[in-house]
Each structure stands twice: as C-alpha cells, then as structure tokens.
C-alpha cells in the first residue's frame, strides 16, 4: 500500500515535470523567439462572402452592441451575412433581432424555440442556414473591432487552414479581483501560449468564439456534438485528426465580458473541464495515432487535452502524501519535490501560469497589473476544485449515459 502511494506520487510528479518543462519552453520561446506573422501581414486578395453566427440566449443586454459592432465592420456589406440565433430566449432578444432584420438586409436571424437548447445545437442549425463557406462565430457579449472580420477571414486563403482563432481580451477587467485575475490569465493564455503554439506550428486551439471555420469542413466532420460541453475543443481535435490546421491571430483582439462572480467562474470552469475530459475520452487515442500530426504536435495535443486531468491528479497526490504523513512514512525527497512542483506548477502551470502571465504582462506593457500575481494562489485551490467537479461530471455522463444540460455563463453588463 505504502509503496503504491509512493509510486503514485512519483507518477504525478513526472506529469508535473512535463508540464513545467512545456510551459517554460513555450514562455521563453514567446519572449525572445522569432514570431510567425499572421496571414494579414503577408497576403491580400479578393475577399470572400462570410456568415457571422451569434448564438444568443436571453441576450437583450448585449444584443444591440454585438450587432452594431458587426454592422460597423470594415468588411464590405454585400459580402457579410449576420446570423444571430435566438435560442429559447424568454426576454426581449427576439424583438431586438426582428427589429434589426427589418432595418438591415444582411441580418438574417434564426429563431429556435421548439428544439434542444444549447450552443452546439444552435450552431448546427446555423451551419445549414448560413449561405457562405466561411463561418465566423462570436458570443453575444463580444465586441469585435472594425477590422476583426476581415482579419479573421484572411487565414482561409491558406487552403490547409480549417479554423481560425482571434485573441480574447476582457472588457470588464477592472470590475472585481476575479476579473483582474482572469485578465492576467487570458493574457498569458493568448499572448504567450497560443501565440507560441502558432509560431512553433504546434496545435493552437479554436476557442468556439472570436474565430471561425470552413462550413463544408464542419459539416463533413458531423457538425457540433450536442453531447459535448466543449464543442470548440471537440471541433479543434477533429480538425487536426482530419489533416486541417488551426490558425491563431494574436493581433485580432476581441473584447469579451469575463465572469465577475466566483460562482459564475466556478460553473464556467466546471463546464470546460467536463467538456475537455469528454473530448479526451473520445479522441485521445486517435490523436496519439494521427497520421497527419508530427510527434511533437501529438504531444502538444495530448498535453492540451490532459490539462483538465492535472488538478484531480494533484489532489490525489496530496491525499497520498497525507496518508504517508499520518503513517510517519513520508519520504523527504518526494515531499519536497511535490511541494516544489506544486509551486512550479503554479509558476508554470495552466490555470495560474505565473511565468506565462508575467511574461505576457511584460509583452503587453501591463506593468502594475502584474502585482496581482500572488492572488492567483487563492484561485489555484478554487480551480482545482472546479476542475475536479468537472471531471466527476464527465465520468457520471458516461456512467449514467446522460446528456449535459447547457448552462450559459451569466452576463454582468450594467
């Protein structure tokens, strides 16, 4: 029993070491390595027609803003189709969409009231309703800049690109301590992690919003799985498994509203963890065998998928340490190494990636905002719990053969 616990602790430490090394290399590479320019920097050509899809459920507070932002876009009006989807709203969202439909010919809303609710189902319906090959997706609380549509579409001039993702920047960063932390976390995740993965030709992720994909490809891959909570990760992996690439546009900054309350953040993280682990169970083995990916890309893909298993692993290692401690059988070295890598994971790790966040802060010129870094410790334990609950959800989904109920992150706009 004791030996098994010690071996388990060592296994967890090994996983931590792989992630620590990965985050360190990615961070240093982003800080001083040559950057891969985005397509807009290289090419310009005739612009294609594009459909912009906006899933909405009770979005009366933000609907005007996103529709106006898209209507003010620098993209030629005759090439732009805007497809807002009213998904079972019981507020004034439908009325707002009807008003825009009457006033603007390019706004073509979809109304869903009698079918399964949820973003994947809504996107599937939009895929059949949209008339253009390039489909961009924005969540209703996003505010794309005037050049965002044009810049995102540029990536599809590359015939190998199946999806593109822009950078997400919180618009309410100053609202609470949580939003400050999420601002730092997003900065580290996009400015350093996604950009380095794009530069190194690894596997940047399509995040399901502030990005887009080829309609024919999404349809050929079966659309969005309504039984998966992380439809974006699911599509990302299926694209890579079928030989497509995902481009990342660090310069295309889209503003979003991040959760302002810890409860909302808990449910968001739990949903992400649930979906990520569902995708891991579905596609993990295929990803490891993919003939389209190089070994380093397979490794990066697996590290991306396994990341939501790490917090439960850490908690299990801590439980093993506790048992060994109570029995007086604690080996000093594993204890120290675990403690060390707990810190290291926090330093290099995913949910509170201190080195990445610090470097992103320097690159973004965030200066004093980096002073919030130590507060990540409190978010760290919180994240462990939320992610572990998400894993439990994913396992129970399989055991009970239940479908996830889509739970939207609440809006906080005043």
């Amino acid at each position, binding site marked *: 029993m004791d030996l098994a616990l010690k071996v388990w602790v060592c296994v967890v430490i090994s996983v931590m070491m792989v992630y620590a090394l990965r985050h360190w290399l990615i961070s240093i590479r982003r800080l001083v390595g040559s950057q891969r320019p985005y397509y807009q920097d290289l090419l310009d050509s005739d612009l294609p027609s594009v459909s912009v899809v906006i899933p909405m459920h009770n979005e009366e507070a933000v609907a005007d803003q996103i529709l106006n932002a898209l209507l003010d876009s620098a993209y030629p009006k005759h090439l732009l189709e805007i497809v807002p989807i009213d998904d079972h709203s019981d507020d004034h969202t439908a009325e707002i969409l009807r008003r825009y439909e009457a006033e603007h010919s390019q706004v073509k809303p979809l109304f869903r009231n009698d079918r399964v609710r949820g973003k994947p189902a809504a996107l599937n319906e939009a895929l059949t309703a949209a008339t253009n090959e390039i489909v961009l997706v924005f969540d209703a609380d996003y505010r794309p800049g005037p050049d965002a549509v044009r810049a995102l579409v540029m990536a599809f001039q590359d015939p190998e690109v199946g999806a593109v993702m822009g950078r997400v920047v919180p618009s309410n960063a100053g609202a609470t301590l949580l939003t400050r932390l999420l601002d730092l976390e997003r900065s580290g995740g996009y400015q350093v992690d996604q950009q380095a993965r794009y530069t190194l030709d690894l596997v940047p992720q399509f995040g399901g919003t502030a990005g887009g994909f080829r309609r024919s490809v999404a349809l050929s891959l079966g659309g969005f799985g309504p039984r998966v909570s992380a439809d974006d990760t699911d599509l990302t992996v299926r694209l890579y498994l079928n030989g497509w690439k995902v481009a990342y546009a660090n*310069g295309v900054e889209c503003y979003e509203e991040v959760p302002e309350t810890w409860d909302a953040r808990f449910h968001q993280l739990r949903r992400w963890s649930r979906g990520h682990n569902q995708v891991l169970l579905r596609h993990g083995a295929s990803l490891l065998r993919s003939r389209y990916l190089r070994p380093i890309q397979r490794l990066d893909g697996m590290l991306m998928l396994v990341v939501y298993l790490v917090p439960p692993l850490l908690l299990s290692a*801590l439980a093993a340490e506790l048992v060994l*401690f109570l029995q007086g059988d604690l080996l*000093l070295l594993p204890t120290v190494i675990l403690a*060390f890598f707990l*810190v290291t994971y926090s330093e290099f790790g995913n949910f509170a990636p201190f080195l990445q966040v610090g470097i992103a802060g320097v690159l973004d010129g965030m200066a004093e905002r*980096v002073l919030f870094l130590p507060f990540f410790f409190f978010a760290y334990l919180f994240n462990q719990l939320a992610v572990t609950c998400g894993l439990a959800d994913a396992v129970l989904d399989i055991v009970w053969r239940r479908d996830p109920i889509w739970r939207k992150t609440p809006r906080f706009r005043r």
Partner: protein
Amino acid sequence: MKSAVTRGPSVRDRSTLLFPAHRSYRRLRRVTPRTIVQTLALLLVLEGALLFRADWISALVGRAALALVPPLHTPVTLVSNSYFGVRVQVLSFVLPASTYWVQLLWLAGGALVLGAAVAVKKIPVPVRVFAGFAAVLVCVSAYYVLVFGHIGFDGYDVSRLYIRTAMVVWLLLPILLTASSVALPFTMFERAALLVGCVGVDIAFSLVRYAFFVWFIGSVGPIPMPMLYLLLGPALDFLYIIGIASVALVRLSYRLDHAEGPETWTWT
C-alpha cells in the same frame, strides 16, 4: 578600423517610425551568451555559498528559532543532526499527549469550519475553498489519531522533517528563479537582488515559521501538523516569493516601455 555594427534606431529615429512594434507580435532581443554565462555564474556562487555555509545557516536558523519559541510545557532543545553531510540544528520537543476529548474537539472544530465554508455564502469563494481544504486536512488527521492513537511522527521527527524540507527549498529556489528570469533583460544587479532577496526572505520567514510551528504543535498537539506542513507552509512560501517576483516584473515592464535609446522591442 571600426567594424560595422547593426544597431536599433536612435531615440530621434523612434519618433519617425510609422509602425512601432505592436504588442501582438513584439518580442525581446535574444539573451546573449554572455548574459547566460553571467547568470549561471551568479547561480553557482549563490548555490556554493548556501552549500558551503549550510552548517552556519542551519545553526543560525536553529538558534534564532529557539530564541523565538515562547515557553512550552516541556523544554525545547537544539539537537545536532547530519543530513547529506551537513550538520543540521533541529529543535527537539515533546508533543503533548492528545486525549480522547481533545481529538473529538479537533474533529468537531474541523467539521464546523468545513460546514461554515460550505454554507456561509458571504465569505468569498476562494477563502471558503482554502478554509475548507484546511478543515478537511484537520478532520482526517483527527480521525486518524482517534482510530490509531497517534501520528507516525513525534516532535523531533516532524521538526527534523520541517528543517530539512526548508533547506532543500533554499537550494532549489535560486534554480527555479534563474530558470524563470534568464530570458528577461534584468541587469546583473537586479538578478542578484532577486535571487539573494528571495532566498534571504525565505530563510528569514522559514525560521519565524519554524518557531511558530514548534510552539503551535508543542502547545496543541500533533493533529494540525499535516495542515501546517502540506498546506499553510507551501502557501506562505509561494505568496511572498511570487510577490517579490511580481514587483521585479513591474519594474522591468516600466523600464522596457519607457526606455531611452534604441528600440527595446523586436518585431517578428
């Protein structure tokens, strides 16, 4: 003859740049081999000092902690012990016997805190999670003592474990900080201040925490030991080290964005 040297634009040139490096794609210049060598030399000097003066540091920490520990019901003595050839000074003390009622009290207290962490919604969630986690550790420990009668460590064992752990952290900390900061354009003085400052603060805080740890365990018994060793200790270490590192990053960020002279940033 002067060789041709490629330099960045001057201050005057910068004002005429049409496209300054946008934050999305800008990066710093690569670290020079000279900087890497200097940084590694600094690390070696610090590690050497810590290793060769380990006896002295341990004696200093042991004596200072002994002086800081308030009186306990049993005497606290300084015991010499060998660890990888280093003479480590360990505070030795006897843990108070934990009665059945005391164990039940810890169990009930832990359960109460856990219940409050779950139920009291007015407290911010991260604080509730932290308190709940600490309460779980206390409850498990109390339950173990209740069932098996004792924890596997006595006062001397746990004290020795603490000081050995602290010493290994002092040695690993400079390596971690060097790895994190090697590509950042700190001056050698700033690098040295960061490394020595963090290790110095860690040693000072470790001895204060050591004294508190011995006093607390010596006063209330062994049940909260796992909570202190596995949660509170690493949390405190983490908070002030990241705090110091973030202050250094803020200074650096200001300097880079307000730098005089050649353009700091490189594009693609």
